[in-house]
């Protein structure tokens, strides 16, 4: 660990914090339908879309209508993406001549992008045509991100409104988020990334002759436009197989820094939107503070573990930390910080191979996802995931003092707590249940590339990542098999919709409640005590649920490795 390393981490935090307020201000105005800088250009487009679609922008939906609209949109989106992947060999913009994607891989990829997971069982440059990347993946990157933000807005309105029947219009939220928030930011970010060296071309792969006279085929493509939304929308699905470790997908230390900020930018701003909408920005900052505490703790552990190096490197006296699977231009700190950021948010882009991280360095990304990606989290998804935990924390606090729990003047009652628990419990069921299944079936055990506890970690990481809709991987796992394509796809669907639907139900029931005036007995939810309570509840729930599985994987690997033990496949 070096001083320059800590300065880079501090600069990153400062950049995210500095952006939260202005972006929050802008987004709050967009979702209220107020005038913004871009209105003169975008209002006509927005109106034309509504007219074509037969949408009345003033007509709002109840939580059920909102949810059904979202589901209808997703089903059609899935069909479109599946069709593009299956038919890519017959469609244009395929200079590398990629064949049709196999049915199980197309199912996995379509599910993965529709649920904002972006798990990469596909190989990017070796599997997909340019059209699939653009029309298939780029557009789902936008729409799944916009959906996450729209759903968070519905829940925010549930808290903000008093005795209301509706939580907003899904169509309007979706359209505004795409047009006013994501698209303009992506245009700026994409051009900046090209400036940093990222390709953006529809030309064919380049044939080069190296200095030693060998042929080298260099995959290029419309990379920057996809990477911009991949980061801002916390999607994370790479244009290339190696994702953000690929020099074309992350050319410089500066592009690395900006991409990390982009992952957190909208998620952090959503906490500010929340504060504004409930009439007290401090409520938003308190939630961001709880996220920040857990983020810093994870960053310190991963940075320390990677700087300390891995047992096999240290045994040979190789200095400088664990560089296996990392790129020189990012170094230890740029790789460790990226790993924590990408799993804290539900991004899942990787700029180093998580599989090659030290046992403890690789455990932190796993924990980040197991907690449900509420540390800033996916755009929108992080906020509604965190608010679900807030309800649990408030409930626990209410039990302790024997008072009906309240949050922001809303009584938290049986229905909300039940829904919150449903959302909290479906994730471990998918993560641990499928991991258990994979470790006792031949099809599951065929997956891991590493032996011993690390092989178990590869399986656990995969199902954790899928159910949490992250999409990063311990890449040694051979996931492109019918068993993994289907089980991971199923895990993604449950992990997405069994959180979304309870969250929407909470939004609906909260919106209908009257706001009670604060009294002397009201527990203040903008101070340090609340932040501490919230973090405590999250860590206790997460710890009780996942500690046994972590003990079988990274923890035993850490101690065995430190004692000099190595693990050989087939031995």
């Amino acid at each position, binding site marked *: 660990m070096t001083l320059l390393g800590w300065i880079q981490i501090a600069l990153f935090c400062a950049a995210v914090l500095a952006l939260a307020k202005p972006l929050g201000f802008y987004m709050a105005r967009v979702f209220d339908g107020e005038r913004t800088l871009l209105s003169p250009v975008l209002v006509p487009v927005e109106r034309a*879309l509504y007219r074509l679609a037969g949408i009345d922008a003033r007509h709002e939906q109840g939580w059920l209508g909102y949810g059904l609209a979202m589901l209808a949109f997703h089903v059609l989106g899935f069909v479109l993406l599946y069709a593009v992947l299956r038919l890519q060999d017959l469609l244009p913009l395929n200079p590398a001549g990629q064949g049709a994607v196999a049915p199980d891989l197309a199912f996995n990829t379509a599910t993965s992008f529709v649920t904002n997971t972006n798990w990469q069982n596909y190989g990017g440059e070796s599997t997909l045509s340019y059209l699939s990347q653009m029309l298939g993946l780029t557009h789902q990157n936008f729409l799944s991100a916009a959906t996450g933000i729209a759903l968070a807005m519905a829940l925010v309105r549930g808290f903000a409104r008093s005795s209301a029947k509706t939580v907003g219009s899904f169509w309007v939220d979706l359209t505004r988020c795409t047009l006013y928030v994501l698209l303009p930011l992506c245009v700026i970010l994409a051009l900046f990334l*090209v400036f940093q060296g990222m390709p953006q071309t529809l030309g064919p792969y380049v044939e080069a002759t190296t200095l*030693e006279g060998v042929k080298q085929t260099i995959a290029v493509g419309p990379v920057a436009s996809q990477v911009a939304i991949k980061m801002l929308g916390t999607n994370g699905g790479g244009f290339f197989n190696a994702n953000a*470790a690929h020099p074309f997908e992350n*050319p410089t230390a500066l592009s690395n820094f900006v991409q990390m900020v982009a992952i957190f930018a909208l998620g952090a701003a959503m906490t500010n939107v929340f504060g504004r909408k409930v009439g007290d920005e401090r409520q938003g900052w308190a939630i961001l503070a709880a996220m920040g505490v857990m983020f810093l703790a994870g960053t310190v552990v991963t940075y320390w573990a990677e700087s300390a190096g891995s047992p096999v490197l240290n045994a040979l006296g190789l200095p400088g930390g664990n560089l296996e699977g990392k790129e020189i231009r990012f170094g230890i700190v740029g790789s460790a910080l990226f790993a924590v950021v990408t799993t804290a948010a539900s991004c899942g882009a990787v700029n180093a191979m998580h599989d090659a991280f030290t046992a403890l360095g690789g455990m932190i990304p796993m924990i980040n996802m197991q907690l449900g990606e509420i540390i800033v989290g996916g755009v929108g998804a992080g906020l509604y995931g965190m608010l679900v935990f807030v309800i649990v924390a408030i409930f626990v606090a209410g039990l302790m003092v024997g008072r009906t729990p309240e949050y922001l003047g809303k009584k938290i009652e049986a229905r909300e707590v039940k829904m919150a628990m449903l959302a909290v419990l479906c994730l471990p069921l998918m993560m641990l249940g499928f991991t258990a299944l994979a470790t006792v079936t031949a099809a599951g055990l065929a997956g891991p590339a590493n032996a011993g506890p690390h092989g178990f970690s590869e399986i656990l990481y995969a199902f954790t990542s899928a159910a949490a809709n992250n999409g990063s991987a311990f890449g040694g796992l051979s996931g492109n098999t019918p068993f993994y394509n289907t089980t991971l796809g199923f895990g993604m669907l449950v992990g997405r919709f069994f959180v979304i639907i309870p969250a929407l139900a909470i939004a609906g029931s909260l919106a209908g409640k009257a706001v009670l005036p604060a009294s002397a007995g009201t527990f203040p939810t903008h101070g340090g005590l609340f932040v501490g309570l919230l973090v405590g509840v999250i860590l206790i729930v997460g710890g009780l649920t996942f500690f046994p599985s972590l003990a079988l994987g990274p923890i035993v690997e850490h101690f065995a490795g430190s004692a000099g033990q190595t693990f050989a496949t087939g031995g």
Partner: protein
Amino acid sequence: MLSHLRPALVLLVALTAITGLAYPLAITGIAGAIFPAKAAGSLIERDGTIVGSGLIGQSFSSERYFHGRPSATVAPDPADASKTVPAPYNAANSGGANLGPASAALAERLKGDVATLKAENSAQPVPTDLVTTSGSGLDPDISPEAARFQIPRVAKARSIAEEKVAALVASQVQGRWLGVLGEPRVNVLALNLALDDLARK
């Protein structure tokens, strides 16, 4: 559900056209106009042929060139398409080795590579980046220490003074961005091109 069908269908098609076609095509057009070389992949030409990309590493094995980091990329086995064979710096199929921190295979590989490098230059400690694979398998850079480690071998193979090669390496070191972000590094392809230029003069 049926009442949602028209808005869902229309918005899906319209937003797909905007975000999946108009947006990437517009970015392609603008990027090609203002950053044509970068948008095309930062390609490097010498004597009319493309010798590579300034951002993508390539395989060097000759004594006369500086070597990059080990690469774990693979290619389909020509004999059996369901299998793969090692193909270092395959820029059409990026990827890492994915060996865990207590992997016996990794320990084995490291031991062999460290022994080879020690035999080549026993005067300096073996730089970690010269024996570890990168995440992409296409890392274009090595650390300045890794470049300096190779100076005696390259100078000997080219029969030029070590000081001359050392000066060239020093001129090729790129620092951190604004002195803060990232790590100091040397682009291997750029260094080797400069080395060839030195010989031509």
